[in-house]
């Protein structure tokens, strides 16, 4: 645990009645990183984020932003924080520009990045004069993102930031995130889009049943996890493949065998050298494979590529 952590979660536990939503969770987000926070619905992501924002009181443990306890010292904790609210939370009776002005005044900061964000997200200035009630979901999301970023906060907490954005705008938004991190900002984001997290996050935490199951740099996490391979062979390799160290057969269909490989490739290559092989495709490990590995779902899936 580093002393200069921007966000720190210490033994956070939260119960809802008898249900344990988060169980002694520890997280440390260093400055200048994009930190991915992954887990399916109900894993405890939202509870953790809400505790960080001071929206709920931990049953035990605590959350800190810039060293300030989110619950006990919330004003200081949120002093330089940007949070992406759900697009449905914006005021439907306000115009886009009034909404941005309102958000900036609440942040007590000048909207120095407003133009930059609006350009990146391709949100027309003309649209801003319209009431939010006339906006599409994507436009609302762009406005909510602009409201979160416009005062250039030191810390950004983004829950599903690209939800509702088209792929082109998503890529421009990703560039924007990289730009802010290069400027020294820290971003904690949750997403269901694992490919997106893999592209932009330097570090990722995976939460399962309220517990942390992985917390590492994305590259490192991927490297030490499974690769997925497909082998085509006229010979029946299934039983033999299963005996190769680090190899697990996830499916066989005639001459096609799908396997996962953990660790060194040499034993597999040595085994294949003794058998006729028509084709061998080894896919680089991806965050998605890692994620489903933690959730024990790899065996049931087709090759995800």
């Amino acid at each position: 645990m580093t002393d200069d952590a921007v966000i720190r979660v210490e033994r956070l536990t939260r119960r809802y009645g008898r249900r344990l939503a988060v169980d002694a969770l520890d997280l440390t987000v260093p400055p200048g990183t994009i930190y991915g926070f992954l887990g399916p619905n109900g894993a405890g992501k939202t509870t953790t984020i809400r505790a960080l924002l001071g929206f709920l009181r931990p049953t035990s443990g605590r959350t800190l932003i810039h060293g300030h306890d989110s619950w006990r010292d919330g004003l200081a904790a949120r002093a330089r924080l940007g949070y992406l609210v759900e697009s449905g939370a914006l005021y439907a009776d306000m115009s886009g520009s009034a909404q941005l002005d309102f958000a900036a005044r609440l942040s007590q900061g000048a909207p120095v990045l407003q133009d930059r964000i609006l350009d990146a997200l391709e949100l027309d200035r003309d649209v801003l004069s319209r009431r939010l009630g006339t906006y599409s979901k994507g436009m609302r999301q762009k406005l909510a993102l602009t409201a979160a970023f416009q005062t250039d906060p030191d810390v950004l907490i983004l829950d599903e930031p690209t939800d509702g954005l088209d792929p082109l705008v998503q890529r421009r938004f990703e560039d924007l995130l990289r730009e802010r991190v290069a400027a020294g900002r820290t971003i904690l984001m949750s997403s269901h889009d694992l490919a997106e997290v893999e592209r932009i996050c330097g570090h990722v935490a995976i939460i399962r049943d309220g517990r942390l199951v992985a917390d590492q740099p994305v590259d490192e996490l991927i490297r030490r996890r499974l690769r997925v391979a497909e082998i085509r062979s006229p010979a029946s390799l299934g039983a033999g493949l299963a005996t190769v160290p680090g190899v697990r057969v996830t499916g066989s269909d005639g001459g096609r065998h799908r396997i996962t490989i953990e660790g060194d490739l040499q034993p597999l290559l040595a085994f294949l050298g003794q058998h006729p092989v028509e084709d061998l495709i080894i896919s680089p490990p991806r965050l998605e494979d890692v994620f489903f590995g933690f959730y024990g779902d790899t065996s049931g899936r087709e090759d995800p590529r």
Partner: protein
Amino acid sequence: MTGLLLLGRALRQGFYGTLALLLGLFVFELIVPPVARDVGTEQLDPVLESLPPAIQAITRSSPDLIVGQGIQGYLTVGFTSPVFLLMICAGVIAFTSGLAAEMERGSIQLALSRSVSRLTVYGARVVGAIVLAAAFAATGPLGILVGLGLIDTDEPIDRMALLPTAAGIFALLLAVSGVTLCLSALGRASGQVVGWSISWLVASYFIDYFATLWSALQPFTPLSVFNYFDPTATLVRAEWSSDNLLVLGAIGVVGFVAGGIVFRLRDLPG
């Protein structure tokens, strides 16, 4: 500054609805003096006295105070009518249940995810509720005043009696606002809060109503908020009922404070 910003936002939400209610209230009160004059209080007095007790109770009319008082007595109808009570209570309930509506929609996160305290958010609602209570309390008597200006009568009318009447309305609305804001701080959805608040007021109204018909209910009348709202006596006797004002004010303050404590400590609904 942030508090003022939030107050402005809260007051702007539902602004046109509130304005329509205030206008409706003004017009409702405005027509009371001309109607009393045109129908004639000599004709109205025997009708009022012949009303069955149940009707007298539900309209909260008090023949013993009104009969013989001329137009001054019939002005009280403007403040005892269920229509009047419905309009003023609807105005403040709609506003104070707005806190729960903001939690339900998530809009409250806009402020609370920034360096804005929960007490600032809540305080803006309290100030807004007081402003609205004052607006509704002033509008009714103002309508009566303008209505009196429209009629030509030689009867002596004590216009100053409208001041303690307005104070009584203000105190009643403070109590309704305090309780509803407290419910709003506790609740998860505005519909739920409106339901609780209306149930409380309806129960209060019927305790007050049935107690006049069934003496067994008399011991329970102190539990009714309407037990402390008597515009007829106030307007006819031109007296300040400090006991009633204190009780209603205390209910309001306790509601506001309890709501503030709850809102400070509660989890925001997700």
